[in-house]
């Protein structure tokens, strides 16, 4: 099986000064566990401070970039290509990116938080600029021309005055760029950019549109067998017995693997594994450790608080609340969400000669390597994780867990094992975005200005880190015991200059489901509560919601995104709600703003909604968004991400909620966990602010943060009723309308 998608890479990697010692051209057939990753006798370095950890220049004039950040379907492969080609003065088609291979790529941290460009891209840019400076210096020595009289272009260094130049391949020859990355290196003047800032077409799209792309789910290795996991019927059930005779008739059955509460079927052919997993009879103990779904928020409120994170404290909020002319108080909640990848998680592992190789769509191969090592008892050096792009994950979904399953099974059967999760495995067992409960109070002065703001966020403890692997937990192999919900305290503090503010995150000892980050973790929920409650203050003050925000905002870039979005949406200055609303379908608009994590990307949005008064159904026909993420690498890529973040978040806010009984998730397919479909998808209208001389910041998930409040505020504008509970289902909206 040849993947034409990758043949281009093999060309780039042949010959030359720094050549990876195995071909990537035929990944489907390359179960070359620990093939020598050597380059002209040099081991491929991966230390994040070495230039040749990040790039190799081939004798054919091509450059290979080694990126620890991976493309999760967001287009960063293309953007990283643009950054590297720009800095190396190479055409785009002479730069290729190898992603997330622990043997080849530096550990640049997990691919999360909209940091692939902001962090990963900037590191690659520095490595490329360091390399280019060295090439110019080498040419200067060879040509006897001062470096400042040389110019690099199209893979060649030549005298500015004209005359013969030297190609990069000539310069590097048999050597290597054995250099430290210079973080202070002078990078290209943005005024000279030819590739960065341009809407370059994505390198992966033609192959994806024609069925020539190899996703993780397509990947195959020789001798490989198939597995399906059989998860416990309830999260905490113990496996009491397995009736292997129940699958005796399955053709090509290799093994029923049982280790503790981990159970799986391994077969020669894939369909046999699907069938056997359904057919296998096993007995499990009863377990009812989940809270009642109908009492989720009481449960959250009653959960033990292990510590308080005070995320901002200015003046004396309590005292100012006591003195306020007017006081407001509200509680917001945000349901448990699942990632909902369209392709359920999948991985392959092979254990051979004491080495474990895992092909995985993990967003964090370097961290996964350590988890697999801990779980199997192997040294980290004996584990290699190789990234193969999968279905979009939007955070830490089940990809890493499938890798854990595959590693366990590869050891159990002694052959390479491919594990493909079912739809129910993904919906039931991927880690969840935890439930979030937020209490807010505000005090207003006689003019309606906020004089006091006090908020309390009830959210699980923990930060980013390793989410424990399901297989390791079920089989009772070494695994993490702490929660890793992501950095969910971000944006609990406000971007506005109010005189008395106190924002506190009560960190909870537990949460019903294994938590992880799902797009815009915490920052979405926190921004939702802050921006919707601020809208309540504006309404109480009888103020226009835009003008009200601008009153308290000092940051010029923040002010600009808000003014631009108002212009884009043809915002009519007036207080909410709409006066004299009539008819069955009510229309309104709402505004929202974020400075992401208070230190980067600015986004403002306006939602237009239609609320059906008799059914309670909310539609979002149009959403306007303006973003300032500093320097834009690829404006078309940014627009694509903004579309995606807005549409996905409209889906989450209107429809999505994980349902469960006392033992397990019950929303196990797309009918019980519906997502937004074509007829209801909003038109997304975008305006980008490009600042080529500024740092590039995250361009994806920040825009998701503003969506829930913009919709909530628009519903209020249309109806005069405030919805404070995500998702804004017809039942909730109708009840609120009837109560009004």
């Amino acid at each position: 099986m040849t993947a034409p998608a990758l043949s281009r890479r093999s060309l780039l990697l042949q010959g030359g000064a720094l050549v990876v010692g195995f071909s990537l051209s035929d990944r489907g057939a390359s179960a070359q566990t620990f093939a020598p990753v050597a380059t002209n006798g040099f081991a491929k370095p991966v230390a994040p401070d070495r230039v040749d950890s990040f790039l190799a220049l081939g004798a054919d004039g091509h450059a290979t970039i080694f990126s620890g950040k991976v493309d999760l379907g967001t287009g960063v492969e293309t953007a990283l290509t643009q950054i590297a080609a720009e800095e190396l003065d190479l055409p785009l088609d002479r730069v290729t990116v190898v992603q997330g291979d622990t043997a080849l790529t530096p550990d640049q941290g997990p691919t999360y938080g909209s940091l692939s460009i902001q962090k990963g891209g900037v590191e690659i840019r520095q490595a490329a600029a360091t390399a280019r400076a060295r090439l110019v210096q080498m040419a200067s020595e060879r040509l006897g021309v001062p470096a400042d009289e040389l110019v690099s272009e199209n893979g060649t260094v030549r005298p500015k005055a004209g005359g013969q130049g030297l190609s990069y391949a000539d310069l590097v020859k048999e050597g290597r760029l054995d250099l430290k990355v210079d973080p202070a290196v002078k990078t290209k003047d943005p005024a000279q950019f030819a590739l960065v800032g341009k809407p370059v077409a994505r390198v992966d799209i033609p192959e994806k549109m024609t069925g020539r792309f190899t996703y993780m789910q397509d990947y195959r290795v020789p001798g490989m067998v198939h597995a399906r996991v059989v998860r416990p019927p309830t999260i905490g059930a113990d496996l009491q017995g397995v009736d292997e005779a129940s699958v005796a008739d399955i053709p090509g059955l290799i093994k029923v693997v049982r280790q503790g509460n981990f159970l799986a079927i391994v077969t020669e052919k894939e369909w046999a594994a699907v069938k056997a997993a359904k057919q296998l009879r096993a007995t499990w103990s009863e377990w009812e450790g989940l809270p009642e779904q109908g009492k989720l928020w009481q449960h959250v409120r009653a959960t033990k608080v292990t510590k308080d994170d005070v995320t901002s404290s200015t003046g004396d909020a309590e005292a100012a609340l006591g003195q306020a002319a007017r006081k407001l108080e509200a509680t917001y909640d945000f349901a448990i969400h699942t990632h909902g990848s369209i392709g359920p998680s999948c991985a392959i592992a092979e254990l051979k000669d004491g080495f474990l190789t895992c092909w995985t769509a993990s967003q964090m191969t370097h961290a996964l390597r350590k988890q697999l090592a801990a779980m199997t008892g192997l040294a980290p050096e004996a584990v290699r994780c190789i990234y193969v792009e999968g279905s979009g994950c939007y955070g830490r979904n089940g990809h890493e867990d499938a890798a854990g399953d595959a590693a366990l099974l590869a050891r159990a059967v002694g052959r390479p094992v491919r594990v493909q999760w079912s739809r129910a495995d993904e919906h039931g067992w991927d880690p969840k975005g935890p439930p979030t409960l937020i209490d807010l109070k505000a005090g207003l002065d006689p003019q309606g200005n906020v004089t006091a703001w006090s908020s309390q966020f009830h959210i699980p403890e923990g930060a980013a880190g390793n989410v424990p692997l399901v297989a390791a937990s079920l089989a009772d192999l070494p695994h993490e015991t702490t929660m890793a919900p992501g950095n969910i305290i971000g944006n609990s503090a406000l971007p506005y200059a109010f005189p008395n503010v106190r924002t506190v995150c009560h960190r909870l000892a537990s949460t019903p489901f294994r938590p992880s980050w799902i797009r815009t973790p915490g920052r979405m929920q926190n921004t939702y509560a802050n921006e919707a409650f601020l809208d309540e203050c504006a309404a109480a003050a009888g103020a226009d919601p835009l003008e009200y925000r601008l009153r308290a905002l000092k940051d010029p870039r923040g002010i600009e995104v808000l003014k631009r979005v108002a212009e884009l949406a043809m915002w009519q200055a007036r207080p909410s709600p709409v006066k004299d609303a009539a008819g069955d379908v009510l229309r309104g608009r709402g505004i929202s703003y974020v400075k992401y994590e208070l230190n980067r990307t600015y986004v403002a949005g306006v939602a237009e909604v239609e609320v059906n008064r008799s059914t309670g159904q909310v539609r979002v026909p149009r959403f306007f968004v303006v973003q300032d993420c500093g320097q834009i690498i690829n404006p078309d890529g940014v627009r694509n991400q903004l579309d995606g973040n807005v549409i996905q978040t409209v889906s989450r806010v209107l429809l999505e909620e994980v349902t469960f009984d006392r033992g397990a998730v019950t929303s196990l397919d797309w009918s019980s966990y519906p997502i937004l479909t074509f007829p209801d998808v909003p038109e997304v209208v975008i305006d980008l602010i490009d600042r080529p001389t500024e740092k590039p910041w995250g361009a994806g998930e920040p825009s998701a943060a503003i969506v829930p409040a913009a919709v909530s505020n628009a519903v209020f504008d249309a109806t005069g009723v405030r919805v404070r509970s995500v998702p804004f289902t017809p039942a909730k909206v109708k009840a609120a309308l009837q109560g009004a």
Partner: protein
Amino acid sequence: MVQLMSLDVNGRAAPVSVDDPDTPLLYVLRDDLGLHGPRFGCGLGQCGACTVHVDGQAVRSCITPVSSLKAGAKIVTLEGLGSLDKPHPVQAAFIAEQAAQCGYCINGMIMQSAALLNETPKPNETAIRQALAQNLCRCGTHQRIVRAVQRAAGTL
């Protein structure tokens, strides 16, 4: 009981041996014939990622037992629709509109749209959205997908 079958896939005879008549077409296409276009998404016919054409109709291959296919049924997958060098007009339009993020759902989007345009060459936007209502995309690429279908229909 292993059964030998000859399928007509992308204009070629494809002999396959099937040991279970319930095997969905999807698994035969992916595992026996090594095709990547049709994708496993749900196995329930809910998401559309597995869509192929059977005699010109868009069919969910994950819930189509291979034994249910009529003799001589012509199966076309995303690979058979067009290639990198000669993309089908719908594929070319998706490329022109850069209508993908992760792209995992796109097989279904293109196959469903191509079937739609066969029957209705100039659908309006509402008809396109309706025709794709049972195809799920999680990345939120819907807007570009609709534009790509309009482009393919020559109505953009």
